[in-house]
């Protein structure tokens, strides 16, 4: 596709740290190549700010190929921007108009405190995983492929859930800042497979309790999470989480 050059007006959230009050600042960028990614566009802005002796905009990023889960901001009210099933790093400037004004905000949730500008602390997710998002087996060497039978349909569903990169867009997009799509995906990927079986009930209880401790909101089935998820994780996984929690709470001997 032939590249265009566009100009943009940016309204970006600037906040020095968690304790300070943040505010929006306006920037103007000229001649942005439409083949750039969104993050490359911010790189250009930061080069400009640095040359002018101003503080560059802090933002999270790592692989820049849509698989690590580090990047993410809310662009014009939509987490990871307007393209479906796309992380911010894989969003390209060709999707924006010349002269467009973009408002860029960090993911906002009590459980995701702002570290600086667009960078938020998502370690709450790590603590939820530490509470039970694993299986306690001796890994040893790889088992024989057919040693543990798994139905094809189940394997597909588990893989779909495992596609979650833990970026936190579900929390950012949820009107209630709920983390249930993330927790639903992490519980589902193990609940669907035989390897996850032995710790299934304990995991459901521990992870839900950990999620509640972190101060996330409650799911009210708004479906905004699956609409912004860069990996298109379905809310079927939240329904499975609901079933797993009932099963563990009412029908198991696990106590947590």
């Amino acid at each position, binding site marked *: 596709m032939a590249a265009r050059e566009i100009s943009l007006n940016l*309204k970006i*959230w600037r906040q020095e740290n968690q304790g300070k009050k*943040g505010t*929006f600042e306006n920037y103007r960028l000229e001649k942005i190549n439409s083949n750039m990614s969104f993050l490359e566009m911010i790189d250009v802005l930061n080069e400009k700010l640095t040359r002018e002796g101003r503080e560059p905009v802090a933002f999270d990023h790592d692989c820049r190929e849509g698989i690590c889960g580090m990047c993410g901001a*809310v662009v*014009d*009210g*939509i*987490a990871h921007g307007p393209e479906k099933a796309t992380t911010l790093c894989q969003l390209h400037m060709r999707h924006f108009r010349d002269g467009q004004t973009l*408002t860029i*905000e960090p993911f*906002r*949730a*009590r*459980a995701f405190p702002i570290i600086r500008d667009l960078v938020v602390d998502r370690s709450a997710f790590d603590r939820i995983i530490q509470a039970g998002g694993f299986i306690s087996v001796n890994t040893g060497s790889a088992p024989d492929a057919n040693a543990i039978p798994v139905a094809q349909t189940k394997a597909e569903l588990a893989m779909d859930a495992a596609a979650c990169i833990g970026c936190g867009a579900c929390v950012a*997009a949820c*009107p*209630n*800042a*709920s983390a*249930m799509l993330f927790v639903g995906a992490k519980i589902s990927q193990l609940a669907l497979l035989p390897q996850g079986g032995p710790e299934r009930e304990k995991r459901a209880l521990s992870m*839900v*309790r950990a*999620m*509640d401790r972190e*101060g*996330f*909101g*409650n*799911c*009210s*089935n*708004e*479906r*905004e*999470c*699956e*609409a*912004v998820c860069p990996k298109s994780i379905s*809310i*079927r996984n*939240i*329904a*499975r*989480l*609901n*079933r797993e*929690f*009932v099963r563990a*709470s*009412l029908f198991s001997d696990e*106590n947590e």
Partner: protein
Amino acid sequence: MSWFTRTVTASLGKKYIMALSGLVLGAFLLVHAAGNTTILLGRSAFLSYAGHLHAFDFALVGIEFLLLAFFLAHVVTGLVLFMQNMWARPERYAVNNNAGGRTWGSATMPYTGIIVFLFILVHLYNFHFIAPGAVIADVVAEVLGSPLYTVLYGIGLTALALHISHGFWSLFQSAGINHPKYNRFIIVCAWVIGGLIIAVFGIIVVMLLVNSNLLA
């Protein structure tokens, strides 16, 4: 804490309370709508329905208290959820946009809930806490013959239909019932039930306004 307290106070436990109590209240509403259609058949049909209903006097009090318990559970849990969800996002977004998940019903859930709550208070004041010996048909004809109440009931019923359009689908999702095989069916049912309730009650309210002899 006991296993029970821990389950119902968990984020997911509160979902189950909302779903179960919502289901009971919704089921009551359908029965209520079916019973009220007797109004359209005239005074004797309506009074006969009311008379038969109150023949179950003793059971009726028990059912009323049970209904009140589910109602309070739904309202109190809903308010707790609303407050917790506000608390979970201390700083709001400057730009709010719908990525494609929210509907009018889902986005207004707490607000339609509050409107329905106020509407039910008005409704109980109108028709439940009436003078002993008053004839229900006369009370209904008098209250709903007034255009002020037509408007109030119109607002209440619209809020109720919106509330149900999200609530009915939502309770299945909360109960873990979600499969591509029948998701569309559940969502259509939610719209149909919401539409049916507003249609039945709406027709009754409008008929009572335009035809003052309906219950004469």
